[in-house]
């Protein structure tokens, strides 16, 4: 068990003690146009510990780690490594300071060997030529020292996921990192591989290295971490000792205690189904099923929530409903029509609204004015279009109406979308989708990255639309949102719907337990 050999050293040495902190972040604030991704972050990581940074998706963990790894510079605050303030201009600076990053998505060249991948970018040379013997010697040394079990000459494309991750770790160690950042390292692993990874982390710790472990899987965090920092909505909300903190307390820190009062709401669910999924299966590049035999029904006036840890097939399920990804098996029915073979446009025309997960990528044209963004996704329908032509005046007028009715704060329809804050962009998207009077709305993380004010506006809009008979598929990582809005709540784990819960009775902790699989496998902690 990884929890058995937890080291007790360094525990007494606080920030002011003689042992300087391996990494300290003070008051880090990072803004992107329209969003504050991190605000006043405080993080203190002691040398030789596994420090977990937990938070929901979109809470700002990745932004923070990019700051620490020098991928961008913070707008405010200080970064201290070993007690000295540093200013990283690029990851190269961070590496030089002994910080290494193992990305969630591996950055390996498949057609290279393990050895070649590890040395790539910092090749040992002798008289201008690659010194293979030296590289081999150092990799063997790293592999032995940290029990990584690397085969230097194996091709990366022949390796399993766990092995690839160890190659990534070796890459970082090869560059003499003393502090390793692991970004969601378990997201891609099966339980057995997770155990192996945790054994590797124990080795690293024993050798005095520091590990920053980013995750949102609370049970894993409690197993492996020596201390925990919780991030919510872009800022640190607390630290916890995994030995004395329960999963329940962690979850409360993570999602916030301010759960909406369980309002007595009249159900608006009607009988007519608007969307039926029958055995929907989606595979990734033809092999592994990422959505596995999902069957569900959304009726008029019903909000069907899909809960789940990100990466368990929710995004692919949304794509399947929208026609952005072909099905390997199963059928999608809109009303009584089988739309499995329909294009995205045909589906949208027949009354499907879409609030995409990543509005910058899928929901907006950032460099285009708002009125053009009003047209996006509604290219075939009035008021923005007359026959084959764009109705500029109509689009502008309707954009102005949306801005009024949905409280989009911007100078005018000719403003570029990029100038709007995240919340205003999202309100425009919601207004645009609602204006087409859809039968079904597919909403993926509709309030992610928006400020609290916009969030409540969007929630109200969704509730009103539901009352008018709109069927909503709500994918979210915000447990408050799921519990507060859903009429039916499904939990998705590894592509399958593993539980159906009554949102009026479930608690965030129970829901969290189902999301991580802890509820079904064991009694959970």
């Amino acid at each position, binding site marked *: 068990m990884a929890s058995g050999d937890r080291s007790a050293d360094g525990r007494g040495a606080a920030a002011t003690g003689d042992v300087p902190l391996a990494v300290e972040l003070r008051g880090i604030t990072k803004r992107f146009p329209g969003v504050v991704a991190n605000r006043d972050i405080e993080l203190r990581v002691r040398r030789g510990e596994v420090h977990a940074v937990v938070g929901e998706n979109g809470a700002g963990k990745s932004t923070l780690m990019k700051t620490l790894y020098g991928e961008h510079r913070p707008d405010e605050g200080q970064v201290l490594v070993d007690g000295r303030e540093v200013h990283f201009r690029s990851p190269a600076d961070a590496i030089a300071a002994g910080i290494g990053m193992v990305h969630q998505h591996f950055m390996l060249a498949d057609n290279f060997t393990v050895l070649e991948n590890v040395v790539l970018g910092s090749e040992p040379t002798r008289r201008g030529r690659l010194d293979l013997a030296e590289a081999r010697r150092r990799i063997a040394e790293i592999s032995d020292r940290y029990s990584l079990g690397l085969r230097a000459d194996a091709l990366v494309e022949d390796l399993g996921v766990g092995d690839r991750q160890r190659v990534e770790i070796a890459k970082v160690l090869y560059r003499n990192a003393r502090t390793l950042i692991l970004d969601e390292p378990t997201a891609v692993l099966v339980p057995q591989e997770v155990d192996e990874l945790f054994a590797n982390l124990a080795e690293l710790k024993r050798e005095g290295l520091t590990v920053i472990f980013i995750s949102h899987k609370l049970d894993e965090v409690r197993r492996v971490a020596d201390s925990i920092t919780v991030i919510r909505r872009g800022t640190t909300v607390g630290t916890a000792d995994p030995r004395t903190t329960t999963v329940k307390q962690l979850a409360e820190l993570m999602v916030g205690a301010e759960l909406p009062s369980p309002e007595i709401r009249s159900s608006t669910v009607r009988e007519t189904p608007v969307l039926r999924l029958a055995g929907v299966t989606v595979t990734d590049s033809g092999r592994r099923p990422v959505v596995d035999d999902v069957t569900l029904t959304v009726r008029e006036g019903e909000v069907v929530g899909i809960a789940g840890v990100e990466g368990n097939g929710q995004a692919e399920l949304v794509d399947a409903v929208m026609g952005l990804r072909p099905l390997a098996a199963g059928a999608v029915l809109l009303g009584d029509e089988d739309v499995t073979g329909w294009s995205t446009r045909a589906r949208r025309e027949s009354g499907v609204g879409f609030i995409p997960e990543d509005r910058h990528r899928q929901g907006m044209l950032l460099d285009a004015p708002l009125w053009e963004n009003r047209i996006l996704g509604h290219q075939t329908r009035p008021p923005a279009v007359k026959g*084959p032509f764009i109705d500029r005046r109509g689009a502008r007028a309707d954009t102005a109406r949306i801005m009024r009715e949905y409280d989009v704060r911007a100078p005018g329809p000719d*403003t570029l979308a990029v100038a709007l804050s995240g919340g205003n962009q999202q309100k425009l998207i919601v207004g645009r989708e609602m204006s087409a009077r859809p039968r079904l709305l597919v909403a993926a993380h509709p309030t992610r990255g928006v400020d609290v004010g916009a969030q409540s506006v969007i929630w109200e809009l969704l509730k009103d639309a539901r009352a008018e008979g709109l069927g909503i598929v709500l994918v979210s990582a915000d447990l408050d949102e799921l519990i507060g809005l859903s009429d039916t709540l499904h939990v998705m784990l590894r592509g399958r719907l593993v539980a159906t819960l009554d949102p009026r009775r479930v608690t965030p902790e129970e829901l969290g337990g189902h999301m991580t699989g802890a509820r079904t496998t064991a009694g959970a902690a």
Partner: protein
Amino acid sequence: MSAVVRRVGLSLFGPLLAVLVALVISALVIALIGQDPIEAFSVMVDLGDSPAQQVQSIVVILNRAVPLFLAGLAVAVAFRMGLFNIGVEGQYRLATILAAAVGAAVVLPGPLHVLLVIVVAMGVGALWAGIVGVLKVTRGVSEVISSIMLNFIALGLASFLLTGPLRGSPPGASIVTTSEIPESGRVPGLNGLLTAFGLAEPRSSLYGFLPVAVVVGVVVAVLLERTRFGFDLRATGLSPSAATASGVDARGMVVKTMLISGAIAGLIGLPDLLGEQFDYGTEFTAGLGFLGIAVALLGRSTPLGIALAALLFAFLDRAALPLQFADIPASVVTIIQGTIVLAVVIANEIARRLALRSAERAGAAAGSGPADDGAGGGAPPGDSPDGGRRVRTGVPGTPEDVQA
């Protein structure tokens, strides 16, 4: 209102800055080769002494600008969708020789004959470019690679056709050409119009294809800016992922865009073919496809901008001859053109960032949200969610952006 003025100002700022930087660099180069830059520039802007010479110079510029404009349009249509059609060169060469052969082979009443030649040229250009589109959506071949490869094939094919089946010139002639297009297939010049305006009669004839090019420009402008199709096309260029999510069929758009781009490319050779040469030969104007890329870049892929860019390039091209008379190497012109293209890519990016920053300020001023919201708008957008910052200078993004 002032925001509009500001935006227009910013969009002009890039190209003007580029031209200015190019002139400075060129002046340095001219000085380095031991010539007087001032003299060189004055030779270039001197259109002639007599009114007749001046009109002649302007006609030469316009005649050169027409094919450059069409080439720029062909490239720009693909640019706007995020595709890099480098194959314009091959598309127009192949289109021109086949159009010339068809034009020479038939005799039809005037307008019909010309129309047939135009249709053949556009068809051939579209087909040749269509291959690129089909390869991209079915096999995932980058359009950059396939269009370059198809250039070689097109040029080889054109040479083969010219020396083989389509040869019209007598054996042993120094210049190999196709047969001449008869009178009915030619587009008469517009010199009558010039004299009607009281201008001196130039030696060369102003191409009758000029109004055709203007019409094509207007059609492209309307297509891009005012139609649903154009919206889909531009949306795909701005954000392939957002366009797909909005219901645009990315694969279909790739093929359609390449077909349109190729059809316009097919027209490039026609002003020369139907206005002056009347046959396609070894001496036929080459390189217009590549110049079109430069023109489209300079014109920021908008029809009006491309028209101005084409006029500028044509003006520079005309200066080559007078420069030689003044004992200054004509390659000065090429240097200026080259530096303009280089400078424009940089200047456009600077202008884009300035525009974004001013837009962000405007947005921050209007939104009375939290105080810290959007106030730190120094960073360009797009590097927050996916880490990938796309540079939009009119140059399309990476090929996989539009991969279907």
